[in-house]
């Protein structure tokens, strides 16, 4: 039974790790930190596998754990590790380049809105499952998503206007 659980977990890991990594990367912006956080999420998932395997979306459990770990880590280190030039360390080459400006706007969203985006966009969860994972009503998921989209649209429009003014 335990060997079977290990195999089951390993298959789950292989199938979902990249999607979880992208979901967390969108929220934290740093490639290595995202991988560390997702690894931590999977370690905790394995330790609680009997529970997590029953979860409606185990990948979402990992992503939420990773993002909450990020908050705990930041609270512990925010005074000890001052960052200069924003909290978006440069990506080491040869990693693919992100749209840093857009993702910086995503990271400015409240945590709940970022969670909804991570689950809906990167894990392809529907509204009902997202609501179940977050423990909120489906209507609240829609409200968070609408608010996040409106905020991002507004900021994207501002950036486009700024860029156009800069080039004229």
């Amino acid at each position: 039974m335990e060997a079977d659980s290990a195999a089951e977990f390993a298959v789950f890991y292989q199938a979902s790790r990249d999607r979880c990594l992208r979901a967390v990367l969108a929220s934290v912006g740093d490639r290595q930190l995202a991988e560390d956080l997702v690894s931590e999420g999977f370690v905790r998932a394995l330790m609680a596998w009997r529970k997590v395997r029953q979860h409606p979306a185990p990948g979402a459990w990992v992503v939420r754990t990773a993002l909450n770990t990020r908050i705990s880590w930041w609270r512990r280190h925010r005074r000890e590790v001052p960052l200069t030039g924003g909290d978006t360390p440069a990506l080491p080459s040869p990693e693919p380049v992100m749209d840093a400006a857009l993702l910086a706007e995503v990271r400015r969203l409240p945590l709940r809105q970022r969670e909804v985006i991570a689950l809906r966009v990167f894990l392809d969860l529907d509204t009902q499952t997202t609501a179940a994972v977050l423990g909120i009503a489906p209507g609240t998921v829609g409200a968070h998503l609408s608010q996040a989209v409106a905020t991002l649209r507004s900021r994207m429009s501002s950036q486009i206007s700024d860029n156009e003014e800069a080039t004229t």
Partner: protein
Amino acid sequence: MSDDEATREVLGAVKAAVPDIHMHTPVQHIVAAARSRRRRRGLTRLAVSGLAVAAGLTLGLSAPDSGRNTPGAQPGGARLAAWTVRTGPGGAVTVTLRQLTNAAALQHALAEHGVPAIVHVGDSICFQSDGHPLPGLFRVVTHPPGFPIVIRIRPAAMPHGSELLFSLTRISGAVAYVGQELIRIGAPVSCLHPPSYHSGTNPPPAKG
């Protein structure tokens, strides 16, 4: 532009903003970290370690009597002490693993039963090099709980031009992982070795 279109546009832009990256951490590191943490916490029910030992006893990869169990495919089912491969009335193939002493022979037996597969045994985990195996593994392979390890395969559900990739992997000498992927026949395969965090790739397993 309607609200729905605007939402799709923004969410599409967010999705496209994150590059198509892949996680490099091998599953062995996840298993080892969980095991170490459980040990530190002094838990007696060390599930991860226990499963490694249980699987090790089951598969016996380092068993010295490997020659005794040299298997060969037989019509109607290869009946072996180490493992068996049987084809059921519905065409489903059942692999029962007790010990594994000859991966090449198991691979051959699977082929005889209509399951194109690569069987790799070792301390590394093998996967399709581009990190994008074919979808639908769960329609092809099921893993009912129990002892010994039983793998049920539906060859009819395998997409045309596909094969299965099995990785039987040891951690600290015991088998702790039975990895499966559905891959394209002939696709490059890589194997990752612990303990290096950013380990390089090893030569892929030999076919046939």
